[in-house]
């Protein structure tokens, strides 16, 4: 549990943790900007990996080592690798200068994204959130217990969803004999 301290000095332990957190925010935002603004697909994949590692660090700061490890394992280890395989398979010819850009990709897109960000931020800052009394410690053991008791139905359903999704992906992406 990270101790609650409002104004640590930079040389204290909490100050160093704060500096690490700022670096973490920077990594996350740099990855996100690379995803949103890169012209080449492979740069976007690299930015996605950087962003996911940064988000895993955020989860670490949110007192959840388990979800942080799962973030790296699932997103960086599985999803990003799958996407980079798809980039290799689909082999997008890098157009040097993309000419056909829709009207929404320019200033209207940026303005709407900024408006979304500002409105969500105002919503979250403008409300005074009331913390409730803790009834659980949120440890890895309690996650396991809850997953197999209270959330067991969702747990089973999510595994069926994953199975069907992967089978469906195989069916959609396979090469048919008559096409080859």
């Amino acid at each position, binding site marked *: 549990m*990270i101790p*609650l301290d*409002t*104004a*640590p000095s930079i040389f204290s332990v909490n100050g160093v943790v*704060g500096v690490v*957190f*700022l670096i973490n*925010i920077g990594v*996350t*935002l740099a990855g*996100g900007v690379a*995803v949103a603004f*890169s*012209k080449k*697909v492979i740069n*976007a994949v690299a930015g*996605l990996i950087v*962003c*996911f590692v940064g*988000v895993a660090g955020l989860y670490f700061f949110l*007192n*959840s080592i*388990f*979800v942080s490890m799962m973030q790296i394992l*699932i*997103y960086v280890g599985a*999803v990003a690798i*799958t996407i980079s395989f*798809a980039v290799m*398979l689909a082999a*997008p*010819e890098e157009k040097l200068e*993309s000419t*056909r*850009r829709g009207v929404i990709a320019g200033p209207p*897109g*940026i303005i*709407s994204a900024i408006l*979304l*960000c500002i409105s*969500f*931020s105002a919503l*979250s*800052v403008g409300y005074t*959130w009331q913390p*409730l009394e*803790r*009834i*659980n410690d*949120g440890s890895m053991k309690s*996650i396991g217990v*809850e997953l197999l008791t209270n959330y067991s139905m969702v747990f089973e359903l*999510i595994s069926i*969803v994953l199975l069907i*999704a992967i089978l*469906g*992906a195989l069916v*959609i*992406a396979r090469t048919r004999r008559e096409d080859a």
Partner: protein
Amino acid sequence: MSILGLYNQLDCFLILGAVLFALGVYGVLAQQSFIGMLIASELILVGAAVNFMAFNRFLAPDPVTGQVFALFIMAVAAAEAAIGLSIIIAIYRHYHSIDAEDAVQLKG
């Protein structure tokens, strides 16, 4: 509130989630290829998961709930990525391009 104590502020995480969400929305709008759109939609899901985890850490009475939700978001994102990539590969096989402007067969 000092800048070094930001990691104990709920608002900091919520704003970060909103920024990730907005970057993802802009990426979906602006990316040329289907793979770029899929990557940006992953960013949207991550922004939502950051919000869940932040509320879980600071406000929730049972701090397991948000973590379980974040795990479910990861599983759904993995399923979505698998389906999306297979559709993209099928589109590439059909059109020999993954540019979003090239798949115009349904355009009137």
